[in-house]
């Protein structure tokens, strides 16, 4: 008999720390590296400074950026805010005041867009296609001479759809529009070359890729963007773009996680593909379910599945030995309907019954199979309860 919530299938929400990350952070915290990395007049500060600069190099190398194009933040939410608010406030002109994004974005992108509207700028949110990604033709029609910034995520956190950031970047560069990518879910999972994809700003997270929580970064293209406005006031850290004493141990943990991700990216992807296949093969006979985003452009680690007319909370309650989410973790505490599924055009009777399974490096194929069996049993049982045989 399995214990309650023994199997973790919520990797899109957060991941456990990789053993190597724990070891490196632990070692660091026991060493004399506690100095303030800005206090380089003494050895303690210098040691911390060097560790941070090495980490910056490590993180930059994963996306083919220069080290001084990486600005440390508290996570992707802050990086998204800094990118959108900071760039728009610094670069907007009377003729270029429009931000284009989509309804499928994380709230940390949508809310800053709304904030900028209050400041007199204009935002245009596009609807994703039924797969959850941006239609390139629709996007190209939407941009105009007044467009200043475009912000789209790489991998969607709720359904796993992948945006064609290379094509979007190409269009943006040709039209002289800044391009921001929220790569919180994509970083370390899919290869991204910021130069090749013409990306101007990119938000990065550590805890989605087996690194620590509370640390992330913003890539700011030195050549195409240069400066943006800070959103915090304080000391001059991070070229005065993000003041605040840097958390050395978190940064070291993030860099280590990124190095591991770089080495294991292909193996991880193959493993997640296998987990998804096992799950879907095992519940292919289940009636009245729908997979939200299930194409070649879907990240295999995120599986959004809807059961018609059922309620996700009761399915999750029934499958008590596995830990999964309703839609995105950020909205699972309330009854609010997923804005992403709604924007994808999913009918309400499917939205209510939507669960996100997300597989990770530690998920075994047996666990994926067990989860799909449990899911099928729960859906069938709850259908019996409502009088559907």
């Amino acid at each position: 008999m399995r214990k309650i919530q023994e199997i973790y299938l919520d990797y899109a929400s957060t991941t456990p720390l990789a053993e190597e990350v724990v070891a490196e952070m632990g070692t660091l915290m026991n060493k004399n590296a506690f100095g303030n990395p800005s206090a380089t007049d003494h050895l303690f500060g210098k040691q911390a400074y060097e560790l941070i600069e090495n980490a910056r190099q490590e993180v930059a190398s994963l996306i083919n950026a220069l080290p001084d194009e990486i600005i440390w933040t508290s996570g992707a939410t802050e990086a998204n805010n800094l990118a959108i608010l900071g760039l728009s406030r610094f670069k907007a002109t009377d003729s270029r005041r429009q931000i284009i994004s989509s309804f499928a974005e994380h709230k940390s992108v949508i809310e800053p867009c709304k904030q900028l509207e209050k400041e007199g700028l204009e935002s245009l949110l596009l609807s994703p296609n039924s797969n959850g990604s941006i239609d390139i033709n629709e996007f190209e029609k939407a941009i105009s001479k007044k467009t200043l910034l475009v912000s789209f995520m790489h991998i969607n956190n709720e359904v796993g759809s992948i945006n064609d950031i290379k094509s979007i970047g190409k269009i943006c560069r040709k039209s002289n529009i800044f391009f921001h990518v929220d790569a919180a879910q994509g970083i370390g999972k899919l290869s991204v070359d910021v130069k090749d994809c013409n990306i101007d700003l990119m938000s990065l997270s550590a805890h989605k890729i087996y690194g620590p929580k509370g640390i992330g970064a913003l890539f700011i293209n030195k050549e195409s963007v240069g400066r943006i406005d800070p959103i915090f006031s304080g000391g001059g850290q991070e070229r005065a773009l993000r003041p605040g004493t840097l958390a050395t141990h978190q940064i070291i943990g993030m860099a280590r996680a990124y190095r591991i991700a770089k080495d294991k990216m292909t193996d991880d992807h193959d493993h997640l593909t296998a987990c998804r296949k096992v799950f879907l093969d095992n519940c292919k006979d289940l009636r009245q379910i729908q997979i939200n985003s299930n194409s070649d452009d879907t990240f295999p680690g995120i599986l959004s599945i809807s059961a018609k007319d059922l309620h996700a909370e009761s399915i999750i309650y029934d499958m008590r030995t596995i830990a999964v989410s309703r839609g995105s973790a950020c909205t699972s505490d309330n009854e609010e309907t997923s804005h992403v599924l709604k924007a994808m055009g999913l009918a309400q009777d499917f939205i209510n019954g939507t669960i996100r399974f997300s597989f990770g490096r530690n998920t075994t194929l047996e666990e994926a199979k067990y989860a799909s069996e449990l899911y099928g049993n729960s859906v069938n049982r709850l259908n019996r309860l409502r009088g559907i045989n």
Partner: protein
Amino acid sequence: MTQDSTRHYFNQEKHVFDALEDDRSNYIFGSASNPLGMQINLYFKVEEGTITDAKYNVNGCSTLVAITAFYVEQVIGRNLENCTDFKASGIHEIIDVPKNRMDRVLLLENAVNACIDQKKT
């Protein structure tokens, strides 16, 4: 204790109404739903004013499923006129009903009242 009870009643299926096996004409029927898409269907078999059998179909959150199964088990043997005596406070002592889900108890009461109304007509 209440969480254990919620779990227990969430897993009770013995009084689920099965359209293929149960003859609906033997039962009075009451239904209630809410804007979240949750629904309760209650079926009471009433003989000489006493509920001799009760069944349900339910679709909703775990709390709604548990309180419906619990109520149906409790109501058998009661007089139809007294079957609304078991109010929200009583259910709350047995089933873990979070404050933000108290409306589920009202939904159950609405379904019970719908049954009584059908008997009256």
